[in-house]
Every structure is written in structure tokens, then in C-alpha cells.
């Protein structure tokens, strides 16, 4: 298994406050990695480092290295647009654009220069199929994405991210705003996507981490306390704090 992304001694500061305190993690290709931990532990912040979304935040400073396919993503020669094309992201709240379903998916490919109508059509169909949404929406591609249910919207957002052909997918609590049935669908979807994509998912739901992920990282107060195979971590945690968290003693 080759390494897809890696961080080395990653520190992140919001002004004076240190939000990440030296994270070293290696993310293998075509794996699902869960990031768990109590609110405010830095797991979402960490996730947003991987596609440089923290660049948007004022007074946010990063030290250390992050590699994607062995290339330093914060080096001056790194192309952020290209990085974000390769490392896609899905957010906590389903946030489709107020356009048609088709236009939502086509937006990304168009951004990267795809103009050919036939090719666009193919890309949209492929992305929607991959996200398991094609059969539900194929007859209403031109109607507004705002008319979809919450779960459908989130799968649309996944399809939108897939349409630019990334190979890493970052998901920030993608099911926390969804009902159990939609959540199950998204989990099944992620398991099918594992064949082709590397997936990093932040979750508050430990059962979810256990159900879908190969590896789990436990974050606490800006530190990564433990990182290892999910089943190992859940059944024989090495650190006392991990054990306390997963057995529900805090968090």
C-alpha cells in the first residue's frame, strides 16, 4: 500500500492560540481514515489543512509539512487550485449551489476547462452514478437542487466533489445533519468509493468510524493521541485517554 498523504510535525495557530500541536500522520492510498475526538479537538481544523481550506482564515498560520503524493502542498510552487481538484471536500451541512442538479455537478469540470457538451453530460452522469444518485434524479437533471431531500443533497455534494476526478476525498462530519437512513446510504456509498478513492472522514459518531474506516486517529486538545487500525483501536486502545473516550467516559 502506498502513501497518499502525509503530515510531518504539523502545527497550526489561530493568532496566538495553537490549535494543532505537532501532528504526524500517514494516510495510505484507498483507505478510509476516520478522525475522531471531542468537539474543539482540532480534527476539522486538521482536515481543512489537507486541501488548504485554512488559507481562507485570517491570522491562521501553519508550521510543519504536508505532502500529497510526496509533494509539499504548502511549498510556494504548489498550485492550490490543482491541489483542491485532486483533494476534494464535502462539508457538514449539505450545501448545493442554488442551480439545477446538472449545473451543480457540471460546475467543477467547467471550472477546470471542460466545455464539450457531450463530455460534460458524461461526466455528470458518471459522478451522479458513483454517488448513487443517478437513478433518483436522471429524469429531473434540470430542476433545482434545492428541491432534493437532505440526504440526496449531501450525495449531490459528494457527486459534485467527484466530478472533478479527485483521488482523495475529505469529509467533514458529512452525516451529522442527516437522518439514520440517509446516513446509512452515505456510509454504504463511502465503502463502495473506497476502491477508487482515499477517504478521510471526520466523525462524531464512533459507531460510524467503526463501521466504515480502516484506520482511526483520535484527537484531543490539538494532539493526535493515537492512530492505528480501527478495530485495534476500538478493542484494545493503547492510550488511557483513547480508552476513556471510546468507552464514553468523556467527550
Amino acid at each position, binding site marked *: 500500500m502506498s502513501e497518499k498523504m502525509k503530515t510531518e510535525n504539523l502545527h497550526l495557530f489561530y493568532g496566538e492560540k495553537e490549535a494543532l500541536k505537532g501532528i504526524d500522520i500517514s494516510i495510505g492510498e484507498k483507505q478510509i481514515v476516520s478522525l475522531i475526538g471531542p468537539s474543539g479537538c482540532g480534527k476539522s481544523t486538521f482536515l481543512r489543512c489537507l*486541501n488548504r*481550506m485554512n488559507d*481562507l482564515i485570517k491570522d491562521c498560520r501553519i508550521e510543519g509539512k504536508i505532502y500529497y503524493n510526496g509533494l509539499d502542498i504548502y511549498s510556494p510552487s504548489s498550485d*492550490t*487550485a*490543482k*491541489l*483542491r*481538484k485532486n483533494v*476534494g*471536500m464535502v*462539508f457538514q*451541512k449539505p*450545501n448545493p*449551489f*442554488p*442551480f*439545477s442538479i446538472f449545473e451543480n455537478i457540471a*460546475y*467543477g469540470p467547467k*471550472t*477546470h476547462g471542460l466545455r464539450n457538451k457531450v463530455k460534460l453530460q458524461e461526466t455528470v452522469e458518471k459522478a451522479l452514478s458513483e454517488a448513487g444518485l443517478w437513478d433518483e434524479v436522471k429524469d429531473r437533471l434540470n430542476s*433545482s437542487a*434545492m*428541491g432534493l431531500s437532505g440526504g440526496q443533497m449531501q450525495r449531490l*455534494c459528494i457527486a*459534485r*466533489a467527484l466530478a*472533478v476526478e479527485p483521488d482523495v476525498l475529505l469529509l467533514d462530519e458529512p452525516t451529522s445533519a442527516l437522518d439514520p437512513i440517509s446516513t446509512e446510504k452515505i456510509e454504504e456509498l463511502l465503502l463502495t468509493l473506497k476502491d477508487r478513492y482515499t477517504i478521510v472522514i471526520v466523525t462524531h459518531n464512533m459507531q460510524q468510524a467503526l463501521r466504515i474506516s480502516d484506520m482511526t486517529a483520535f484527537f484531543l486538545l490539538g494532539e493526535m493521541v493515537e492512530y492505528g487500525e480501527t478495530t485495534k483501536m476500538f478493542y484494545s486502545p493503547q492510550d488511557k485517554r483513547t480508552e476513556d473516550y471510546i468507552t464514553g467516559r468523556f467527550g
Partner: protein
Amino acid sequence: MKNWKSKIIGGGLRVSAFVVLLILASIILYVLVLGIPQLKPTLFQWKYNSENVSMMPAIINTLLMIALSLTIAIPLGIGAAIFLTQYKKEGAVVKVIRMTSETLSGIPSIVYGLFGNIFFSTYCGLGYSLVSGALTMAIMILPLIMRTSEEAFLALSKGLEESSLALGAGKLRTISKVLLPSAMPGIISGIILGMGRVLGESAALIYTAGTATGMAESLLSPARTLSVHMYALTSEGLHMEEARAVAAVLMVLVLIVNFISNRLGKMVGGKNE
């Protein structure tokens, strides 16, 4: 006891709603009932003379005035709103621009008229003209369009911007292809309000676009709009019946403009529902 109180309050609210409705309805009815019987074909003749007092030139001038002032105010207003919400989010400049626009929206229109008269008509040498009037109107509705556009941008969820950027889109593309279309319904409501103000304005236009009766032949010709036309007819006192007809037409025009803009808003923003 409680029940008794809530009945009184409920009754009071109902009465106030009814009074508002009554006032509005009686104005509309009054204008239409007095005005419509006065409508006659000669009022719509292409050329105005003191015989037919045709309002046709004024109708055309009004439409030109609206189109021209919006052409000036819309890009400036939306541009400023984008700058304030997407680029310069805080700081002294923003505060000054906000304060200025708030102050400007509270100034009586006659003050705009006098300013337009001194600056555009006299200092810039544009005289009493369509363009002087339109520039003055643009300044007058600019704060309105800017503020509503700003609110529309601020109301957008942060997720839209983030999603677009996360797909590898740049800032400019995110603004023009995602944020602007998403904010469109709000922006259009500001534009409608602006249109309404141009349509109803008389004081500021008398001093800038003048009261000449002909149809504007160029940007530099004077252009009497419907509201000004109505004011002129009433103040001359010779054509009161015709003035009533103008009021009715003005009212219908307002309704049509609102209807069309609503439709337009739904068409652009319809994807939003």
C-alpha cells in the same frame, strides 16, 4: 383574564391591518375611478401640444429615464456591494462607505435635485437633460441598490463559497458564477425599489431633466417624465382632468413594472426554490 386580553390585542391588530388596507385600496380606487374616464386617444398622440396635452412623450421619457439610471446605478451598486462583502470586509473605508450610503438614503429628493442642478446641469454643462436627470437618479437610488445587494450577499451561506473554492475555483469565478447568481433574488428586489423611486420622482427631476414637453431625442435633450408631467399639468391648473388620467396611467405603469420585475426575479431566482 388572559383570554380577554388576547382578544383585545388580536382585535386591535386586525383593525390596524384593515385600516392600512382601506387606505391603500381607497387611494388606488380614487385614482383609477377619477382617472380612467378621462383617458382618451388624443392623450396618447405621438406629439405633445397644448391642445391634446399628450402624455406619450412623457411615458417614453420615463422608460428611458428608468433604463438609463439603472444602467448607471446597477453596476456601481452591485460592484460596491461585492467589494464590501467579499474583499474589504472591515476597516475604516468600509465604515465610511456604509455611513455615507446610509446618510445618502435619508436625504430628501429635492436636495438631490439641487445638487444635480448645480453639478451636472450647470457645472458639467449638461443642462436640463435626460442624462443630468439619469445621473441624479442614479446617485439617489445607488445607496438603495447597494444596501440591498450587500444584504443579499451577507445572507448567503458560507458553505457556498467554501464548496466552490474546495472544487478548485478561484475567487473571481466563485463570486461571478456562484455568489452573484445566488444573491440575485435579493439584488433584484433592490432594483425594483430603485425603479419605483425613479418612476415616482418629480422634485429632483424638475431641476435636472427639466419640464420641456417633447420626447427626448438625445441624451442631452430635456425629458419630462410622467410624474413631472402630472405635476406640471396640476400646477398649471388648466388640465386637471388630463392630470387625473396621467395619475391612472402612472399607477398602472407601477403595477406593470412590479409585475415584470417579479417575474424576472422568479426567472433568475426561480432555481432557488
